[in-house]
């Protein structure tokens, strides 16, 4: 069989070939991403002032060996951060691509439509006004994200979800929340203001074990749910009329997808604080890799995890001074966003 053979002209054969090609591509890309994420996960725990080998890290994580000093470094110090980056990255990647596919707009990321800002406001209010810390702040962030999601739903969804209108409403909501956050910070004591700012910048290093466990459990439940909901998503992509004509219960499916995406991003923000641009960028990168098999939620989740793990590596080890992860993702994400806006308008596909 030569590579220059002409494609089969009969429909059944051409169809089979097309489907097989797409399935292979999807499997290959998702598999490679999974391996990459695993490698980055281990790498993240290998580097630092106390360098470790991969086998030591893996053995310690899986409780295969008992080496107290290695275990302390790995399980005590590095695993929580790595696990944060992994779980939050998965959640942000999946959530971002769900939003983008549902709203048919690459700008429709939970970052940009106020959900993370709602979480931020709730967290800041908790730190400054209520004087709480730790798990309570995360809980408030969760509540804030939900409230923001609900607000967006009420303001935007009723009147249609595609086009710039939704983005504009989201930007408005985000600005509104940010304004209040700014005001609250000016009224705060220095110590609390610093704590709040620290939380707002977003970093994978600030999570506690209980928050992490919650996110991990949520992922175990919600990622499979998202994968199941990918089925009706495929029809919703074609427009509400076509989706209903194909037998999809559009309002129910959309609500399910939105709820899943909001819970995922809310938990991620609760664990790491708002980390910019991972949710925005993961989906498009995954789609570029997937080619014709575009739209895979699992692939986007892995890309999110890979991005966050890489950003953490860069932020902590490759910068002159260790930075919060959010700074690195922002530095990379902002140019991407500008590029996206520029090319979208050029193609005439801008909403």
């Amino acid at each position: 069989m030569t590579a220059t053979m002409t494609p089969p002209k009969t429909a059944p054969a051409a169809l089979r070939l097309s489907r097989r090609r797409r399935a292979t591509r999807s499997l290959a890309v998702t598999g490679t991403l999974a391996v990459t994420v695993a490698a980055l996960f281990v790498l993240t725990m290998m580097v630092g002032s106390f360098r470790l080998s991969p086998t030591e890290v893996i053995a310690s994580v899986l409780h295969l060996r008992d080496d107290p000093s290695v275990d302390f470094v790995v399980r005590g110090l590095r695993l929580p951060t790595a696990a944060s980056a992994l779980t939050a990255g998965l959640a942000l990647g999946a959530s971002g691509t769900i939003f983008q596919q549902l709203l048919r707009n690459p700008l429709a990321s939970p970052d940009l439509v106020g959900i993370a800002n709602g979480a931020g406001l709730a967290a800041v209010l908790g730190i400054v006004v209520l004087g709480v810390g730790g798990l309570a702040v995360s809980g408030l962030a969760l509540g804030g994200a939900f409230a923001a999601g609900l607000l967006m739903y009420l303001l935007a969804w009723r009147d249609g979800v595609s086009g710039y209108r939704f983005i504009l409403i989201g930007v408005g909501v985000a600005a509104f929340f940010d304004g209040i956050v700014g005001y609250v910070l000016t009224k705060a004591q220095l110590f609390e203001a610093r704590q709040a700012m620290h939380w707002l910048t977003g970093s994978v290093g600030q999570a506690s074990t209980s928050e992490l466990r919650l996110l991990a459990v949520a992922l175990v439940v919600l990622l499979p749910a998202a994968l199941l909901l990918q089925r009706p998503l495929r029809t919703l992509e074609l427009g509400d009329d076509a989706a209903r004509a194909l037998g999809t219960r559009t309002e129910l499916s959309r609500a399910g997808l939105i709820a899943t995406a909001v819970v995922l991003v809310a938990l991620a923000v609760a664990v790491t604080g708002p980390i910019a641009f991972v949710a925005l960028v993961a989906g498009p990168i995954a789609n570029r890799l997937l080619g014709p098999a575009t739209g895979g939620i699992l692939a986007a989740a892995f890309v999110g995890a890979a991005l966050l793990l890489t950003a953490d590596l860069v932020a902590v080890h490759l910068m002159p001074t260790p930075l919060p992860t959010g700074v690195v993702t922002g530095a990379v994400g902002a140019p991407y966003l500008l590029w996206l806006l520029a090319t979208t308008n050029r193609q005439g596909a801008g909403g």
Partner: protein
Amino acid sequence: MTRLRAEGLTLGYDGRTVVPDLDVTVLDRKVTAIVGANACGKSTLLRGLARLLPPKRGAVYLDGRSLADLSTLDVAKVLGLLPQTPVAPDGISVADLVSRGRYPHQGWFRRWTERDHDAVARALDATGTADLVDRPIRELSGGQRQRVWVAMALAQDTDLLLLDEPTTFLDINHQVELLRLLRALNAESGKTIVAVLHDLNLACRFCDHIVAMADGAIVAEGPPTEVVTAALVEKVFGMACLVVPDPVAGTPMVVPA
């Protein structure tokens, strides 16, 4: 025997009623065209029949049961619709899009079966899009794209097929091609087809039954020769014309006066 009919159907959007109290019976195994001036309620009626628009009053009956009592999925297995402006997600290929027509026949966990494969292959063959299988939709011409959408509706393998203005953005050769395809589908598999059409001449040429609407009501319905007269065109479209037999097919042909 009629499978799809409406009784006392009242349809509208928000506070506005577009179709008041309408009765219509869709002739089984025939090709029906709904015609009328812009904003006369043709698309609204079609959407009501397809369960996209819930009736304000009255009901649509499919196989004797009200559409409101049936689940969206059950309806989708029997009744297919090609909407007016379908949206194609970025980068999707022809094969991928047509395959989505199999959605109502696949369960949550049941994946691609031989039946699905055959239905999609047949749909691709029938619409002549087999050689476009791997092409992304956005690269295709308007005519090709419309054929692919029809292929998706065909892959759904329904007994009834409704099409909302399927020929509107096509050039004349593609319009004729599409209508010939619908005619062939009806002849070969007895599909009941209802299409909202703008071109009166093509409607007469390719359809068995014409439903002419004005202001949300049916003004006339019947075979083209009976329905399409100069008087009707004057009434529905407000245009003076001459109706002569088409030189090729003998069906009524409207010539503006």
